């Protein structure tokens, strides 16, 4: 029943996507009366996608094991929460989820812009529907989650298994699984929209103006989700995987990071085009690259190709993705070549020490970062194909290569905002840079005295102080000017300054967040300490200023798993203040126990306990004690970055924002040297 309805929904969505795409491109090619029909097709796809995802949710919750996806990931003993979220815990379901989110974004885009951007929207709609058709084709064929179980599993016709194995144990061990994947998908899939606008700009020949304005919001929104998704993913692996780290440069992590880097570059470089009508070609290429990286990342992580070059030909998903990536690449580049004359732009730079140049360096660093991570991720495949030898590229490589680039980005996070557009008077620059530089140099001495002897960590701290001081100056100077002009309190003046130009100050808040993340990463990775102890009941260990005592060790049973748990009293030098219960979970489908560490989070340092082993008589347990300084600041920095970006788009689309922008250029030309106080970005 659900299988058949699912087939109908999936098939219908595929058909509507194709028909709608045809209508959309016909509307662009001289039959504008078809544009509303293309829009209706988008709403129809969204309705059918919603139906499909609801059907799957019902099948999962009702434990309908006649549906093959449910038979793969469902189990009667899995708690309801994990049953619902197992919607995205395996390949077919996650592609269905993808299709639904894409349909949602598409519907939102065509609805919000139903009366605007008449030149662009048909092509935007058509491009979105073509991408949508690709995913519904995947869902109709190689990744169909609605295939009846007996067909998929090779059982007798109509046979239904009594129970299923449940989701992958790692994916049902922490509630963050309900948060991290949807955020990541909302970011990843959302990046299709800016790509669609880019293609529409190429097709319509209108490569400046409208598309740049429209695309900012449609890139910021996925960027916020992607940022939150990546940080929550890091947090998830920290809380679940038991090794006390949050980022292993695993290909799956890299795949999410790559489009984040290029989308970040794009968000910066479109500001240059908005202001100076330059970098037209570059922006189009960046938005195409971003979309291709989302496809390529999915291809890498979903096709099995990383396990081995030979594994991927076994399934159809890999060839499908590779085919689609090739198609997108060829079509996009052909369009770029076709429009290369329109994409030429006049050089627009008045001085080297300007905001524009800072953006150029920002783009260079982000693209070099992208290239490095991409190269490291695919190098094992290249080496296997060319040398015939399996090699690994892991954390040591990525850390070594990316830290210098990341350092440059931290530096730019402060320098960029301090540099005015066009050119700044040497006086203004000296005023802006003097105190931050002094503060950074002094802090360098202080950090050295307090024992920061790892050079790169020390440099990260010094650069961070410089960046933060420069950013504070960007808030402080206009707030002080306003206080003097209006006689307000400093707090009110600051609030007024920020809320009048949310786009600009929201962006700077993001920079604060990024710098805080950098500091958290630098300190936690350099000053992490860990040690393994085997303790008898009642025995205590002292390590790095913490005392940890094993109080008891016991086993228990929950519906979906068995567990062994150890209770530890923990505290600083002055006695015990908390109890922590790390455990080992035993799932029937997993031979290895799934460790479940416990973390006591404090602003200065986390205490992280991982139960490693236990004595079968219950007399002793082996625990890995990890002291991770400043880790919590990575999550806080991530939240600040996401909230800052939210602030930056909080009045996007409001009339005030646009009219002010339209009026701005003449004002700006009148007094360029004051750009440190005026200006939008």
């Amino acid at each position, binding site marked *: 029943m659900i299988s058949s309805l699912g087939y109908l929904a999936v098939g219908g969505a595929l058909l509507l996507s194709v028909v709608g795409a045809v209508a959309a491109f016909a509307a662009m090619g001289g039959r504008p009366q078809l544009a509303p029909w293309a829009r209706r097709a988008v709403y129809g796809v969204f309705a059918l996608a919603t139906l499909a995802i609801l059907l799957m949710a019902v099948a999962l919750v009702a434990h309908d094991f006649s549906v093959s996806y449910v038979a793969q990931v469902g189990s009667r003993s899995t708690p309801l929460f994990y049953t619902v979220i197992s919607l995205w815990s395996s390949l077919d379901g996650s592609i269905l989820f993808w299709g639904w989110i894409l349909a949602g974004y598409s519907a939102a885009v065509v609805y919000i812009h139903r009366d605007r951007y008449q030149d662009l929207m048909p092509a935007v709609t058509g491009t979105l529907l073509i991408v949508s058709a690709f995913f519904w084709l995947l869902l109709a064929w190689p990744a169909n989650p609605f295939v009846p179980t007996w067909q998929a599993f090779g059982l007798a016709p109509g046979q239904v298994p009594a129970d299923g194995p449940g989701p992958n144990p790692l994916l049902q061990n922490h509630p963050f699984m309900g948060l991290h994947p949807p955020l990541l998908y909302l970011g990843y899939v959302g990046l299709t929209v800016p790509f669609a606008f880019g293609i529409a700009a190429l097709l319509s020949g209108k490569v400046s103006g409208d598309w740049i304005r429209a695309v900012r919001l449609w890139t910021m929104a996925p960027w916020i989700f992607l940022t939150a998704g990546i940080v929550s993913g890091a947090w998830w692996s920290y809380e679940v995987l038991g*090794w*006390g*780290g949050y980022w*292993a*440069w695993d*290909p799956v992590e890299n795949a999410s990071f790559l489009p984040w880097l290029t989308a970040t570059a794009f968000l910066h470089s479109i500001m240059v085009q908005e202001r100076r009508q330059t970098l037209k070609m570059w922006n189009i290429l960046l938005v195409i690259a971003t979309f291709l990286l989302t496809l390529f990342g999915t291809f890498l992580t979903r096709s099995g190709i990383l396990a081995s070059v030979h594994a991927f030909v076994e399934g159809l998903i890999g060839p499908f993705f590779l085919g689609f990536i090739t198609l997108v690449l060829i079509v996009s580049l052909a369009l770029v070549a076709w429009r290369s004359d329109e994409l030429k732009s006049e*050089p627009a*730079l*008045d*001085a*080297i*020490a300007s905001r524009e*140049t*800072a953006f*150029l*360096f920002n783009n*260079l*660093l982000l*693209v*070099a970062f992208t*290239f490095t991570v991409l*190269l*490291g991720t695919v190098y094992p495949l290249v*080496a296997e194909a060319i*040398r015939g030898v*399996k*090699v*690994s*590229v*892991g*954390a*040591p*490589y990525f*850390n*070594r*290569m990316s*830290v*210098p*680039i990341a*350092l*440059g980005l931290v*530096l730019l996070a402060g320098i960029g905002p301090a540099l005015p557009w066009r050119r700044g008077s040497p006086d203004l620059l000296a005023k802006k840079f003097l105190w931050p530089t002094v503060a950074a140099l002094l802090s360098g001495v202080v950090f050295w005295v307090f024992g920061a*002897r*790892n050079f*790169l*960590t020390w440099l990260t701290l010094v650069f961070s102080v410089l960046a933060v001081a420069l950013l504070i100056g960007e808030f402080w100077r206009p707030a002080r000017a306003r206080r003097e002009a209006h006689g307000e309190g400093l707090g009110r003046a600051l609030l007024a300054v920020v809320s009048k130009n949310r786009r600009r100050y929201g962006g700077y808040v993001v920079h604060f967040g990024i710098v805080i993340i950098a500091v958290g990463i*630098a300190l936690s*990775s*350099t*000053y*992490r*300490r*860990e*040690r393994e102890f085997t303790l008898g009941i009642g025995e205590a*260990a*002292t*390590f790095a200023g913490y005392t940890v005592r094993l109080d008891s060790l016991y086993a228990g049973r929950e519906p979906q798993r068995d567990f062994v748990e150890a209770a530890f009293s923990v505290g600083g030098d002055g006695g015990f203040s908390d109890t922590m219960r790390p455990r080992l979970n035993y799932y029937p489908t997993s031979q290895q126990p799934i*460790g479940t560490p416990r973390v006591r989070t404090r602003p200065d340092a986390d205490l992280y306990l*991982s139960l*490693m082993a236990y004595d079968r008589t219950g007399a002793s347990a082996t625990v890995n004690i990890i002291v991770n300084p400043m880790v919590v600041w990575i999550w806080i920095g991530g939240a600040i970055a996401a909230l800052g970006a939210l602030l930056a788009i909080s009045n996007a689309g409001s009339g005030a924002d646009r009219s002010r922008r339209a009026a701005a250029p003449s004002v700006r030309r009148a007094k360029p040297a004051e750009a440190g106080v005026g200006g939008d970005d």
Partner: protein
Amino acid sequence: MATRITLFLLLLAVSPAVEGSGFAFAQETQEAAATMPAEDPELEAQVRRIAAKLRCPTCRALSVQDSPSGMAQEMRSLIREQLLAGKTPAEVEAYFVERYGEWILLEPKAEGFNWAVWLLPVFLLLGGLAFVLITARRWVREGQARAAALVKEGQEGEL
């Protein structure tokens, strides 16, 4: 700003060469605490340094140092034993490479074809930096020339 960027590019250029000298970001040597007097801090630091370079064969993307798995624990004690038996860190690494293949190393050895993975990003960054600097200067120059031409045109128009 140009000089600052050059400084960090220099860092990038030298860092692959400075093997394990505290230049790598992850896991600076952590001196052991005093509760287990039997432990030799120098030996443990050496074990950690080697373990951080080896891949845990049963995990995804984790090093032998980071992995909590049983396999990684065994490999760590194997490293310790071999070091105690008088092998040099290079010999210990070679032992694991011989046993598992190059795959066990988390960093490709900088030799032969592998140089590509080390040098291409550096070339891209250095080339990109040169390109951006040269282009930026040209743009500033052209912009000034255009502005001057405009001014001149305007003056001629007035005459």
